[in-house]
């Protein structure tokens, strides 16, 4: 059978989707109902960020070993955005992501093994090896897809919001700063406002579109302000601080869900690596990378947990080890799986 085996979603309480309805069974919140800091939630989100980071580093190695093909667009440095936003979602909500989507996919609960296997072209890949890094799709987990076309995620989420609206759900579009100069964002912002659609537009402003600095190609220079002109709530947040992202996303998602109306979030962040696997990113001004590494979202959150929330160093080390174990098992399983093969790929052109 060519269909990817349906994977169990059980296992470690911390594994899988970061959505709060699953992680804690309750409402999404940076601060729990009784006003106390949500320590376990924060730890789950930190773990998720650590997993994404470890995953990306592993994919880089696997690419060099010839196990991952074509190209990849890694997410290092932006983890707080998808983890923070997805943590504000519930079961039944949707996410549409870009080609830089491993973070969003993992945050939505795509199993690590199934994602790794997809990138390695294995039959156990979440899409049977047909999609690859730029085309990860998993509707069962609310991932409408990863979109190879800049801006494609935006319309997909807008449409998913038409469905979600009937069930009290919301849809999130992730996209980059570069996508804000292209057709989809404009038509969809307008469409979503006019139609009253519960969609959250999340711009991950990582300062670059490929090799081009955002400020060189973005008229007006203020993405959130451009969005605000369509008459929807629009905020800019520190995309490297997961509490800030979670707070803003929670507010925006609540707005979308309750008012049946869109909201816009610009998350200021940084792409720590080159655009894709072939880009050494030499065009960055000196010191820029370093100053952003000093604000690495994972390190920031670790420090906050250890400081503000008094989480022990041991607990964090344990998390890291746990993540590493999960990843190693997942990659080993993916590597052991058979390659997607035409025998297993009796494609039928149409759905029946």
């Amino acid at each position: 059978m060519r269909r990817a085996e349906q994977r169990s979603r059980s296992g470690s309480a911390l594994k899988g989707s970061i959505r709060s309805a699953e992680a804690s069974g309750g409402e999404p919140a940076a601060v729990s109902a009784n006003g106390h800091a949500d320590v376990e939630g924060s730890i789950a989100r930190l773990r998720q960020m650590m997993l994404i980071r470890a995953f990306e580093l592993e994919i880089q190695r696997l690419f060099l070993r010839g196990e991952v093909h074509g190209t990849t667009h890694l997410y290092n440095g932006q983890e707080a955005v998808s983890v923070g936003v997805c943590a504000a979602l519930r079961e039944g909500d949707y996410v549409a992501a870009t080609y830089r989507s491993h973070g969003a996919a993992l945050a939505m609960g795509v199993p690590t093994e199934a994602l790794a296997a997809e990138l390695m072209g294995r039959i156990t890949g979440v899409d049977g090896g047909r999609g690859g890094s730029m085309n990860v799709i998993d509707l069962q987990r609310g991932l409408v897809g990863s979109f190879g076309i800049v801006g494609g995620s935006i319309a997909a989420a807008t449409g998913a919001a038409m469905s979600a609206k009937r069930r009290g759900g919301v849809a999130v579009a992730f996209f980059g700063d570069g996508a804000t100069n292209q057709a989809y964002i404009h038509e969809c912002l307008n469409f979503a406002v006019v139609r009253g659609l519960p969609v959250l537009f999340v711009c991950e402003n990582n300062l670059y579109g490929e090799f081009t600095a955002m400020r060189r190609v973005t008229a007006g220079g203020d993405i959130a302000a451009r969005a605000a002109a369509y008459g929807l709530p629009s905020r800019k947040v520190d995309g490297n601080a997961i509490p800030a992202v979670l707070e803003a996303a929670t507010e925006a998602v609540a707005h979308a869900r309750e008012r049946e109306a869109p909201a816009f979030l610009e998350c200021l962040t940084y792409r720590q690596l080159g655009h894709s696997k072939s880009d050494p990113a030499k065009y960055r001004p000196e010191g820029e990378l370093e100053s952003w590494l000093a604000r690495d979202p994972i390190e920031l959150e670790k420090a906050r947990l250890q400081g503000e929330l008094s989480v022990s160093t041991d607990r964090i080390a344990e998390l890291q080890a746990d993540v590493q174990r999960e990843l190693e098992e997942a990659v080993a399983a993916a590597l052991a799986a058979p390659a997607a093969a035409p025998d297993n790929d009796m494609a039928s052109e149409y759905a029946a």
Partner: protein
Amino acid sequence: MSDAAEQLEYRAAIAQALAEELQRDERVIFYGEDVAAAGGVFKATPGLQERFGEERVFDTPISELAMCGAAFGAAVTGLRPVVEVMFGDFMTLAMDALVNQAAKWWYLSNERTPVPLVIRSAVGAGGSFGAIHSQNPAPWFLSVPGLKIACPAFPADAKSLLKAAIRDENPVLFFEHKRLYSMKGAPHLASSEDEVEALGSARVVRAGRDVSIVAIQRGVHDALAAAEQLAADGIEAEVLDLRCLRPLDLPCVLDSLAKTNRLLVVDEGSALGGWGCSVIGAVAQHGLEHLDDVWLLCSPDSPVPYSPQLERVHLPGGDAIASCVRERVGTGVPTTA
């Protein structure tokens, strides 16, 4: 054929199909520019908003890309959107959502995620609407795996194929020819009222032994008119209405050719890269042994002119069909099988 009282107008067939499917399935929604409050610029969709409410039938901004991209997003998450893109020429603006998303998701999701959406659009020339409101967009999409393309010539087919398109689990482009909206015909061709034609079957609309004329949309009626003329000359033309371009019902064409051995394809568009050229290419690959003669009657290599005089000459019509058949087949000469 039934009498005038029972006749169904093409535009009414569209409205009925939409109404019945909206009624039948809560998941069906319908939107487009001026389709709801005004009932469409071709008056094919009046009354639907009143009946089904403005959450399910609504007017949109002029945003073809968002409209079709959102239809994709809605389709993969459980709705069954039907979108009107007012003129087929405007499909250029929505192409990305249809080609790079809608057509791809079934395959890329490892056949887990169907994409049940329909894009309706008014296509074709003949009304002096000029070069940018007269094209048939089918060739732009014909090569794209995963899409279906329907192009009904008769009111009954307009209804049953649109119903089939809405029930289909795949993205369907549904092209309505502008010069057919006011045409009337029998309300059904299928055996029972409720029947919905499967997408992808052609139909022999006139039997004949001397030449097979393959056409779609308005061209079918032109071919039928020509066949009448030709019959007077002793030439019996078989006329095939493809009804869908993708999937293409090649067996139906080959069956006819096995009898006639001569093929004329009538295509309102231009020669190279058109659907007509492709049909001939498919026939040559799969039925070369049946082919004694094959030709294409189509438009010259230019955009569609505005002036009625120029447009009339530009488009292949019934007379041109009849005269080229006479020329190629000879008058009243029996076929050599």
